[in-house]
């Protein structure tokens, strides 16, 4: 064993190569290819790609639909992630306390997350139906949730919160349970109440994990596609069209691979920036 390790130490390149090749093929090549495509005029139904320089990006910059999609995406991300973390944290703290039926409760909370997104979205579409939907029935309203330019996005956010909060709750619950009970016992002996224990024990110890949860959820929400696509298809009047939906429609419906790739590159850079910010925050939190 140690001889093997020694040999690896002598010739690391040969041993790293397989992983590096796989990574290059499945990650690096597509990224570079999309970057290249974003610099071309290229329609699938037209001729071979021709170099366009930054023309696609100039068009992107002046494209009202792009800024609309970016605004929708940011709004969706900020509101849904904030709600998911707030509600998820609440669930995690509750589920960490001993009570009768805790084990089945933990399983039940996970259910929405276990349902495939497209199925869940279809279900919500029926519930939101303005004619016979259960939500109007329960609220005693006659709102056309998905057909109203103001409500449609919020309807999508509510569905996403329902769907993704279990994920946040589960991770935070694991984090909460890994905090040594002795700390809480000691705090109680010192006369600390529930709020002080949370403020000075739970919060600081949960923070690094919380940031990781935030990275996952923010990137997930920023790339949201299937949930909204099934619910509204981006309508009404593109008020729920996110960047991913826009990119999908340009790439796979209109077959404009040049411009569609430019949108994809824009998404890529947005996600890169978000990640960089979080990684920085994470470093500070762990210091």
């Amino acid at each position: 064993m140690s001889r093997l390790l020694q040999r690896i130490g002598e010739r690391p390149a040969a041993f790293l190569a397989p992983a590096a090749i796989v990574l290059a093929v499945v990650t690096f090549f597509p990224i570079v290819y999309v970057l290249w495509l974003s610099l071309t005029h290229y329609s699938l139904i037209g001729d071979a790609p021709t170099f366009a320089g930054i023309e696609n990006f100039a068009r992107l910059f002046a494209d009202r639909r792009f800024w609309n999609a970016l605004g929708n995406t940011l709004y969706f991300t900020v509101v849904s992630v904030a709600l998911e973390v707030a509600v998820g944290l609440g669930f995690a703290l509750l589920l960490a306390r001993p009570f009768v039926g805790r084990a089945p409760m933990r399983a039940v909370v996970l259910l929405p997350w276990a349902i495939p997104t497209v199925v869940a979205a279809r279900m919500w579409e029926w519930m939101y139906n303005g004619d016979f939907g259960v939500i109007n029935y329960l609220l005693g309203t006659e709102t056309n949730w998905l057909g109203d330019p103001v409500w449609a996005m919020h309807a999508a956010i509510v569905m996403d919160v329902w769907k993704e909060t279990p994920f946040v709750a589960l991770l935070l619950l694991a984090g909460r349970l890994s905090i040594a009970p002795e700390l809480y016992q000691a705090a109680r002996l010192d006369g600390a109440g529930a709020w002080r224990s949370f403020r000075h024990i739970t919060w600081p110890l949960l923070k690094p994990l919380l940031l990781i949860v935030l990275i996952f959820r923010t990137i997930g929400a920023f790339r949201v596609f299937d949930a909204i696509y099934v619910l509204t298809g981006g309508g009404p009047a593109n008020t729920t069209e996110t960047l991913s939906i826009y990119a999908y429609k340009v790439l796979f419906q209109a077959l404009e691979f040049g411009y569609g790739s430019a949108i994809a590159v824009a998404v890529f850079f947005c996600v890169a920036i978000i990640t960089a910010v979080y990684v920085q925050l994470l470093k500070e939190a762990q210091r």
Partner: protein
Amino acid sequence: MLVAAFAIVGCGGESREDARERTIVFKHFRLFGDPAPFAALLREFEARHPGIRVRAETLPAASDEQHQFYVINLRGGARDFDVLALDVIWVAEFARAGWIADVTALLSADDRAELFTASLEAVTYDGRQYAVPWFVDAGLLYYRRDLLERHGFAPPRTWPELATAARTIAAREPDMHGFVWQGRQYEGLVCNVLEVMWSAGGDVLDGDRVVLDSPENHRALEFVQSLVPQGVSPALVTTATEEPSRHIFGSGRAVFLRNWPYAWTLFERPDSPVSGKVGVAPLPHFEGHESAAALGGWNLAINARSRDPDAAAAFVRFMASPSAQRTLALAYGYNPARRQLYSDPELLSAQPHLEALRDALDAARSRPVTPRYAQLSQVLQSTFSAVVTGLESPEDALAAAQREAERIMAEP
């Protein structure tokens, strides 16, 4: 002598060809119902063309997915299918890309005379035909005969007549909607609104020129925008697609419905609450203009890279023949692309609505026939959606759509 020798060589070549099994693959959307009549049709073709076998392969149900499947495979140069069923709005795009073969020769002068004008237009690109019309569809107006009678209205000929009747009856009857149609942001919305625009004398393209920002279209969009606020249509139309709107009308809760012909048989089922009470008519129009219906439907095209274009052509000819179309119309209720079948006694007795449908199909228009249709449709979808939800005024929406459409049409 020489000629004879060539003839012998030719024959020899052909018989060798015959001896080898030739298989063609037919990609198509799923036919709902008993698969037996369709399978029998394929066997009939094989019996008539010894040596050729047909394998039919079904595509995913969603239209978008079918489009994506074709694009990915044809762009990749796939040769594993020969004949493909194409939506009317894809033909120009696929022809421009060079993915489907020119089939002009498959349509005789008689065939052309038989086909609905819009249907032939939809398969024509650059003056040549790239697909053979198979089934057709057109938007229709369904109305409740009993309700119109009870309240003293005649079936509406014009849009204002429809608006008045819908508003009045919806207000007088309990739990009743007026005019239900498809207003969700999707392809169906484009059909619905284009029908109103055409019946006001408007259009999208004139040749390659964009003519969206016109007084005619303006008037049409004003009308469409007024439907919900004026109580003609319920607010729920802005999320409705075909099926939800059919359910509302089919459960007896709407006076008027715009939908495709498939709804007719469902309304006439014995267990349907509206059975025997439904009338069908061409869509209304504005005074001084003509009724227009959006053409839908499917066409048969041949993969340009097919290994056996002759067998594929024979198959297309067979499938589009009057007898095959008749069989499929009887078995599955698909509306034939050939006009003569609309006076076929057996077909008419099984599906009496075909009579009214023929008028609608004669007045049908194809959506803009351009390789850029998918792009154009996205602009129209969001524009129309903004108008029906009251988010933008018709002026602003049309001006913006005009600019966008001009940019699309100017692309090389």
